[in-house]
C-alpha cells in the first residue's frame, strides 16, 4: 500500500484555485520529488497533505487512512513530518527547545534524549549551538535545525519543502547527502525542490507541476532525460 496517496485534490486560497486536481502516490521507502516553477503549487501540495491548507475536493490517504479532514496535529501524530518552506525555526526558542518541539508528541523523556543524540550524529553543529536562539543561527544552521526538528518525530514520511534554498553549494551537497542517508535508514521522503538537477539525482521518481496540475510524471531518470524538463527546469537547451 502506498504510504501517501493524493486523489484529485483541489485547494483554494480565497478565490485562487491553487491545486486543480492533484493525484499521485508515494510508495514505502521511496524518494519522490515534485518539481515546478514558482507558484506552481508545490508548497500548497505539501501544506494540504499536512492539513495546514484544507482540500476542498479530493482525498489524501496516509497508509490507506483518509486524513483529508484531520487537523494538522493529528496528521503529525500519524507520522507525517514537514520541513516547511523558508525553514521556520522558532526564532525565540533555543536550539534545544526547537528540537524538543519536534518531539512534542513523544511523552517518553528517555526516547526524546535518544533521538536528540541521533540527530546530533547527523548534525554535530547543532550540539555546539544547543543554547543559542534559533533566530540567531546562520541560514544553513537554521536549515539543519529545521530538518533535525522534523527528524525528532521520526516520521514515517518526511515532506521537505526546498531544503536547499539559499544554501552554499557545499551545504547543498551535504543536505542532499543527509536526505540520501535518511532514506537508506528507511524514511520515505516527498521532496520539493527548485534545484531540479539535484532533486532528480537523489529521487527515485518525480512529478512535474504546472499551475496546480501534474503535467508529467516518471522515474527520475526519465524526467532527467525528458527534453521538456531539460529545457524548463534543468537549464539545458
Amino acid at each position: 500500500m502506498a504510504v501517501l496517496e493524493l486523489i484529485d485534490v483541489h485547494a483554494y486560497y480565497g478565490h485562487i484555485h491553487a491545486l486543480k486536481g492533484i493525484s499521485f502516490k508515494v510508495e514505502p521507502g521511496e524518494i519522490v520529488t515534485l518539481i515546478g516553477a514558482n507558484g506552481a503549487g508545490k508548497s500548497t501540495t505539501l501544506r494540504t497533505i499536512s492539513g495546514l491548507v484544507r482540500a476542498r475536493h479530493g482525498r489524501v490517504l496516509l497508509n490507506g487512512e483518509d486524513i483529508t479532514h484531520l487537523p494538522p496535529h493529528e496528521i503529525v501524530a500519524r507520522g507525517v513530518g514537514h520541513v516547511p518552506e523558508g525553514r521556520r525555526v522558532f526564532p525565540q526558542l533555543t536550539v534545544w527547545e526547537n528540537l524538543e518541539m519536534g518531539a512534542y508528541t513523544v511523552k517518553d523523556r528517555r526516547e526524546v534524549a535518544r533521538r536528540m543524540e541521533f540527530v546530533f550524529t547527523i548534525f554535530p553543529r547543532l550540539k555546539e549551538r544547543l543554547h543559542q536562539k534559533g533566530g540567531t543561527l546562520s541560514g544553513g544552521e537554521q536549515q539543519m535545525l529545521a530538518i533535525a526538528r522534523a527528524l525528532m518525530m521520526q516520521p514515517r514520511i518526511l515532506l521537505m519543502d526546498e531544503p536547499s534554498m539559499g544554501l552554499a553549494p557545499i551545504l547543498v551537497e551535504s543536505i542532499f547527502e543527509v536526505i540520501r542517508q535518511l532514506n537508506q535508514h528507511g524514511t520515505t521522503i516527498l521532496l520539493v525542490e527548485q534545484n531540479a538537477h539535484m532533486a532528480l539525482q537523489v529521487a527515485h521518481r518525480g512529478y512535474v507541476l504546472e499551475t496546480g496540475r501534474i503535467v508529467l510524471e516518471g522515474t527520475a531518470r526519465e524526467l532527467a532525460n525528458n527534453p521538456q524538463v531539460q529545457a524548463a527546469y534543468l537549464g539545458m537547451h
Partner: protein
Amino acid sequence: MRKAISQSVLYQALVVPLIQLFVFVAISLLVIGSVILILAALFNRPVTGGMTLLQFVIRTLPQVAIDGLVIGFLYAMIALGYTMVYGVLQFINFAHSEIFMVGAFIGVELMLALAIPSTAPLMLIMAGILLAVAAGMVGSGLLAVVIERVAYRPLRGAPRLVPLISAIGVSFFLQDAVRAIEGLLNNAFYRNYPSFPILNQQIQLATFTLAGQPIQMQIQAKVIFIIIASLVMLTGLNFVVNATRLGRAIRAVAQDRPTAALMGVDVDRIIMLTFLIGGALGGATGVLFGIRVGRIDPYVGFIPGIKAFTAAVLGGIGNITGAMLGGIVLGVLEGFAGAYLSQFTGGAFGTEYKDIFAFLILILILMFRPTGLLGEQVGQKA
C-alpha cells in the same frame, strides 16, 4: 548532560524570575525615587507641618514606595492576561477587565457565604481568603475559556477590528450580567468584602532616621498577603511559561502558529489554555484587589483593566517579562504621583490627577520607545 539541562531549566524558571522581579522593583524604585528626590531638592520650599518639600519627601518616600509596589504587582498580574493573549493571537482581549471583575465578585460571594467571623483566628481567615482566590482563579479562568470559544474563535479569520468589537461587547455584557444577578439576588449591585481587623492592622517594618528625618515604614497585614500571593503567581507563571512543555508550546504558537501545528501542537487547545491561565491570573487579582479596596461593583474592572493594558504596552505588548516590568513601573509612578502631586504643585493638582500624570509619562515613554520598554517580542521567554 540531560540532567544538567533540566537542572538549569529549573534554576532558570524559579530563581531567575525572582531575581528579575527584584531587579525590576529595585530599578523602578531607584529611578523614579531619585527623580522625585531631585525634583524635591530643586523646587524645595516650605510646605505643610513646618517641613520643607524635601523633608516631606524623604519622610514619606519609603511608605509611598511600598504602596506603589503593591498596586504595581496587581497591575502586573492583570497585564499578563492581556499580554499572553496578545502573544498567541495578536489581539487585545478588552473583556479581560471584566474577567477580573467577575473574579472579584466570585471571591466576595464566597467570602460572604463562608461568613468567617471577623474575630476568627488568623489561620481560618487566611484559609478563607485562599479559598476565595482559588475560586476566583477557577471561575475567571473558565469564563475566559468560554469567552474565547463563543466570542473570539468563530471570528479568528476575520479582520482584526471584528474580534475587538466582539470583546467590547462581551465587556458590556458581563458588566450588565453581574449587575443584573447581584441586583436580583441582593437588591444592590455592589458588594463589600468582609473586613477583618487582624488584616487591617499596620505592621511596623522599620523606623529609622535619614537626613534628620524620622522615617516610619509600615505595611497593612493584608498587603503582605497580597505581595506574597503576587510573587507566588508571577514566579509560578514564569515556571509554566519557561520550563514546561505547555509553556514551550505556548511560546511556539506565539512565534509561528502554522509551524507549531506542524510539530503536532493542537493550536486551538494551546490558545484555550492561554486564556485559562490569563483568566485565572486575572480572577486571582480580582479577589486580591477586592480584599484591598473592600467595596466592588460591576464597573470595578474598567480602570485597573485600562491601567494594566497600559502596563502591558509600556513593557512591550506580547512580552511577558515586559508586562511584569510595566506593571511595577506604572504602579510606582502612580503611587508617587498620588502622594506628591499636590505638594509639588502647591495644591493646584491633587491626588485625583495622578492618572493623568501617570499616563502623561506613559505617552512620553512611548513617543521615544513605541515598542515599549522591553520591546514587542511575541513568545519570548519570560
